[in-house]
């Protein structure tokens, strides 16, 4: 954890989390070498939207429909998909902004999604979030010092006395490339890129192990995006942070690297290493997504998947992509495909059958293996 060893003051002493921890001070799950740092399994989340007085006429939006993924310590895990695919809801579930309707979230081996507020607090410190728009994620009425020290004081009682929190705030500002002069200023006195640095500093001051970055560069000028991506990359290397990096922008994901999961309407349809995914996308949706990405000097190809995504209030049966998929067959309309390692193309008899009843939950391979949730791929048709 490099510079991130922390006074155990931040963890409520004598609380069940610290006892289950390994000797690593406050790094949760640090002792369990092989297990993933974050494990999301079969998470389902719906929201009621609209509706009039006392909730009449509300529709249910199914944002997550059985999402599973694992992120290991120090790893970068990217989630891509178009808007409305549930990637931000996934971030909210992991960050503890909302509870999943079904499924589990584990951090360092311990289940955290159903914990009481008091017992969740150490995990709230270890999992930090960087939001999309720094204009909205920093309280405009607070100086940088207030914004940073309120986090430090909240998580580390040892920093509540005197000017210790302020010193710590200056430290994290330096880590993000800002000077200590920034402490006395308000967010509106900074540029967009600087504000995103402040937002990152606020995440770092909690000494996290895991950072959720929800579209961290989408609201920034292209000229500044690279700087922020470089900063996040440096922090990953120097601080050993694991990232859940959420983006709709394929070029940004390609830049950031790591493992990539492609989401469509609240399900993961393909997961692979960044290089593999961009070199040889397997799922028809991934292919359509990559083909639709604009690039300099490339004429836009004809649209591979006609139509709009179905409304998340009224999802089709079977594979959610089948209404737009040119490979769709009878089975795709009726049976939900599970996530399996694809048979090496072109021939192969995928083990789609046994997983077909599940909600796309099983990940049969760990580490570098890629998985695809598609009957056509499993059957070797594509």
């Amino acid at each position, binding site marked *: 954890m490099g510079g991130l060893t922390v006074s155990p003051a931040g963890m409520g002493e004598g609380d069940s989390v610290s006892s289950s921890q390994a000797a690593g001070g406050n790094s949760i799950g640090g002792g369990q070498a092989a297990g993933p740092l974050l494990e999301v399994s079969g998470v389902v989340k719906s929201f009621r939207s609209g509706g009039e*007085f*006392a*909730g009449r006429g509300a529709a249910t939006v199914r944002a997550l429909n059985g999402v599973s993924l694992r992120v290991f310590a120090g790893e970068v895990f990217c989630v891509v998909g178009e808007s409305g695919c549930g990637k931000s809801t996934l971030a*909210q579930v992991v*960050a*503890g*902004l909302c509870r999943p309707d079904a499924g589990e979230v584990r951090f360092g081996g311990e289940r955290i999604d159903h914990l009481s*507020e008091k017992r*969740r*607090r150490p995990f*709230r410190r270890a*999992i*930090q*979030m960087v*939001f*999309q*728009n720094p204009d*909205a*994620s*920093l*309280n*405009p*009425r607070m100086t940088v010092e207030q914004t940073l020290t*309120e*986090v430090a004081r*909240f*998580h580390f009682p040892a920093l509540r006395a005197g000017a210790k929190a302020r010193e710590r705030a200056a430290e994290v500002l330096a880590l993000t490339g800002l000077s200590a002069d920034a402490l006395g200023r308000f967010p509106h006195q900074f540029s967009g890129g600087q504000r995103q640095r402040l937002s990152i500093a*606020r995440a770092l001051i*909690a000494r996290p192990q895991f950072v959720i970055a929800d579209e961290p560069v989408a609201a920034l000028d292209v000229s500044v995006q690279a700087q922020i991506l470089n900063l996040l990359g440096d922090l990953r290397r120097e601080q050993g942070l694991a990232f859940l990096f959420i983006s709709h922008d394929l070029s940004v994901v390609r830049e950031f690297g790591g493992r990539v999961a492609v989401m469509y309407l609240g399900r993961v349809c393909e997961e692979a290493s960044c290089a593999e995914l961009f070199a040889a996308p397997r799922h028809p949706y991934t292919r359509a997504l990559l083909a639709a990405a604009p690039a300099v000097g490339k004429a836009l190809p004809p649209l591979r998947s006609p139509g709009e995504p179905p409304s998340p209030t009224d999802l089709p049966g079977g594979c959610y992509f089948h209404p737009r998929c040119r490979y769709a067959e009878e089975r795709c309309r009726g049976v939900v495909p599970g996530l399996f390692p694809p048979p090496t193309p072109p021939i192969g008899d995928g083990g789609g059958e046994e997983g077909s009843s599940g909600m796309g939950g099983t990940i049969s391979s760990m580490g570098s293996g890629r998985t695809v949730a598609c009957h056509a791929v499993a059957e070797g048709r594509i």
Partner: protein
Amino acid sequence: MKKSLAAVLRIRESGVGVAGASICLFWAFVAVFADVISPFDPLQQLSPLASPGEAVEGGTMLLGADFLGRDILSRIIHGTRTVFIWAPIATASAYFVGVIFGLVGGYYGGWLDDVISFVANIILAFPVLILLILIISLLGPSGASIVVAVTFASSPAVYRIVRGEVLTIRSRDFIAAAKTRGESVVYILFTEILPNAKSPLIVDACLRMGYTTIFIGILGFLGLGFPPPTPDWGGMINENRSMAISFPHMTVFPCLAISSLVLGLNLLADGIREVAQKV
């Protein structure tokens, strides 16, 4: 401290604001030094029906006397105290109730918000005057009843403003950041949300202080204000209204007092709004 003083002094940037602040400061000065500057005892009966400028024993009645011979100017000067004590208390009380309900209703939303909004709408739909008369008749005329009546009549409007502000602020990401940190609802409401709703509320508080001044005047006029012989602007208009045609000075000057203070507060509110928009 230094910063908040600087913020208050920024009112100098607005001409309207300076005018409003001057009028308000003038009346505040009158209220504080009422004993020193008032030429007569406000309760002493000197020369009934004296017209403005009439000389009596011990001085000149600049604004004349009322039907009992009490000096109008002295009664207006002492009446300032009544307004300056009860209008802020009543407004603050309406704010306390309105802000609490507004924060809770706006933040939680759902059925709780539906219920609070429904009650607020019922109160707002009810004619204010009848509401005030009803409450004062139930509680009897006193300063405390005025506070209750004004709170009841004004807090729904405050609730609406606060709720609207909270609805926009609560969806912003710095609130999500506070929630991911695990902050309590009370902390989020009062430390993260309320300071961001501050500027529209200060402007409204200023305007509402004016409304409250008018409310107190109306209650006094209806005989539901402070029991006589307390010097009270609305009460003075009421006591002398039967003679308003023959002796207009008895009612005109208290009316001018109320109007000028309300005007001052409204101009001050405009000035604050103007300064707040400049940033």
